[in-house]
């Protein structure tokens, strides 16, 4: 039994290797396999000549074709830019208010504007544009400086209360702690609570009405409906930039609070400004 050799009838030769009677059969491989193997080696060497391959002290050999993944990305970006050149130029020179929703420039603007927004605006306004305390929510129907395409574009381009753009939107609420007596302040806070439909002290609110007419109505309007030309918020609605509770309003009356926004006209391209304007306008609050 132990002497049994490889089956004779199959006529399989051995490689000549023999370990303690165990022989290695030789079923020859096809020769084209061997040549394919050599070809892959040759191909591999060739590859290292034409493409970046061998590691050196400071980087790898560049290869004869000068290929690089960075270069490929740059070429891809250039190709996309070139493809979008026409629609981008059309957007840059478009009158946004007259731009049809079916216009390719509109779609380009909304999609591109989303990217511009994420890169430049989301730090304050949030990635979902819902804002935060002190940073306006761009999704709702309440606008400090106006929610038309024209108004939004102006705000984006020139910013708010910044010192770098002479055309920036500007207004400042005085800190009434220096102007009003404490009881006058308390009364005007009750008045604001009253006109915004919240729980309030009716007597104090009545006392606050003349104070409001004297001190606040010039910007916020007689009825407290605000004035977009001055960025004065509507005090009668349910939306509060700095909070609408008694304590929040009292703090705002005493110390005054307002935000600053940079002029994006100095940083963004014309088509990017138009794009982000279109994007913000279609988030749900555009007028």
């Amino acid at each position: 039994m132990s002497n049994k050799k490889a089956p004779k009838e199959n006529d399989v030769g051995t490689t000549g290797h023999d370990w303690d009677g165990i022989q290695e059969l030789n079923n020859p491989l096809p020769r084209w396999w061997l040549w394919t193997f050599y070809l892959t080696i040759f191909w591999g060497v060739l590859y290292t000549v034409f493409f970046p391959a061998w590691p050196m002290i400071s980087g790898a050999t560049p290869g004869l074709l000068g290929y690089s993944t960075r270069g490929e990305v740059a070429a891809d970006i250039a190709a996309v830019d070139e493809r979008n050149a026409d629609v981008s130029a059309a957007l840059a020179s478009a009158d946004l208010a007259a731009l049809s929703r079916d216009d390719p420039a509109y779609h380009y603007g909304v999609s591109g504007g989303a990217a511009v927004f994420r890169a430049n605006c989301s730090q304050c306004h949030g990635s979902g544009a819902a804002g935060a305390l002190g940073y306006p929510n761009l999704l709702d129907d309440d606008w400090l400086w106006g929610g038309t395409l024209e108004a939004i574009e102006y705000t984006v381009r020139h910013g708010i209360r910044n010192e770098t753009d002479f055309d920036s939107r500007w207004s400042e609420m005085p800190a009434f702690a220096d102007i009003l007596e404490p009881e006058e302040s308390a009364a005007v806070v009750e008045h604001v609570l009253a006109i915004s439909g919240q729980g309030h002290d009716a007597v104090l609110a009545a006392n606050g009405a003349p104070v409001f007419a004297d001190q606040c109505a010039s910007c916020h309007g007689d009825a407290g409906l605000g004035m977009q030309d001055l960025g004065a918020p509507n005090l009668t609605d349910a939306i509060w930039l700095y909070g609408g509770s008694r304590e929040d309003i009292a703090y705002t009356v005493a110390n005054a609070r307002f935000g600053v926004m940079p002029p994006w006209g100095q940083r963004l391209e014309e088509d990017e400004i138009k794009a982000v304007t279109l994007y913000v306008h279609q988030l749900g609050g555009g007028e």
Partner: protein
Amino acid sequence: MSDAVTESLYTAREPIFPKTVSGRFRTLKWRLMAVTLAIYYATPWLRLDRGPNLPDQAVLVDLAHRRFYFFWIEIWPHEFYFVAGLLIMAGLGLFLFTSALGRVWCGYACPQTVWTDLFLLVERRVEGDRNAQLRLWNAPWSIRKLRLRMAKWSLWALIALATGGAWVFYFADAPTLARDLVAFDAAPAAYITIAILTATTFVLGGFMREQVCIYMCPWPRIQAAMMDDDTLTVAYRGWRGEPRAKGKARTDDVGDCIDCNACVNVCPTGIDIRDGQQMACITCALCIDACDDIMGKIGKPRGLIDYLALSDEPLEREGMQPRPYWQHVLRLRTVIYTALWAGFGLLLLFALFIRAEIDVSVAPIRNPQFVTLSDGSIRNAYDIRLRNKHGEDRPFRLQVAGDLALRIALEGTDYEQVMVAANETQLQRVYVIAPGGAEPARRDRTDIRFWIEDLVSGERVHVDSIFNGRGLQ
């Protein structure tokens, strides 16, 4: 060390010159070849009117627009499970056929077999049958040999070009692409694909042939797992044929095999079926035809080489009749494969029929969860994707149910309707608004249901979602 190495570890391919054969299996194979080649070459040219905005090609893989058209079925990328299901069915079908009939796929329907057969046909027409081919192979180069070789290779190249060319027609409108190809106006990818497939067809069908089956294809090595003693496969009745003898050596006590080598000469993979089952056998059954022919000539019954099941060997050795084919084919294994195959098929058919014509998905926007409007009402936003699978533009109406206080509004339009272009997906932002004092605004969450109606067909579907209110805030 015992024997010295005398053989090389590598061998060159032995040229094979299969002899022409005729018979029942050869006839079947010619017919199958005609059918399979006709399906391959003609399918892209079948037309089917789907409407003005959809392609009128019956079978089309539209990679650019990510659509797969198969006659009356249109598959979008999110329905790719249909393709996966078809692949599973193809796999189970292969299991079924292999367990019942061995390598029938290899022998009759595999493209490698079909195209090699076609190339062999050309080879015989140009150079003659086996003996003429052998002589030409051994002859030194001459004008005649060069002329015959060039003629054969040219014909092969033409077939290869037609094969590679036909492939790309599955991926674009065939008549348009054909015009573009001729005018050198088609995409480079089309030319590159044609070039690659032409080259592979030419090399694999003309020169590699059985090497593909033996050394390149994984299937021969896998399918042994599906075969058992009851699998019908091409085999040699050694108990009837042995001891083989020819000519004067034939006495009364020899077997039926006259050792004429007819079975070996017709074999496209160059094996001897009398050595038993082997990996190189693709069960093309041509040796059956060859042997039947010889048996007829010497006045013996046909079937010395035949479709056999191994389990019949003991019976036949005892001189009994083999069991009928259907008893071999019908066994637990094949029944299970058939049941699985049919089950998947029915499942796919079922999925196909319950597939709504309106395809909608609703993605609630949860950044932020809700927006408070100036009048105190609460607004939720949803991205609704409407897919219009029809050949013409369709209007859809969107409605919301769940609480009477809820109101729906569509971004960009004052209406509750949206027009979706033919064969497109439209992304529509939809707002659902609840007045500040209403129940859904005060609650944490409210179940809602979007109703989407195709205003042309009147078909309605619904998608459930959630409305977020102020809740505990």
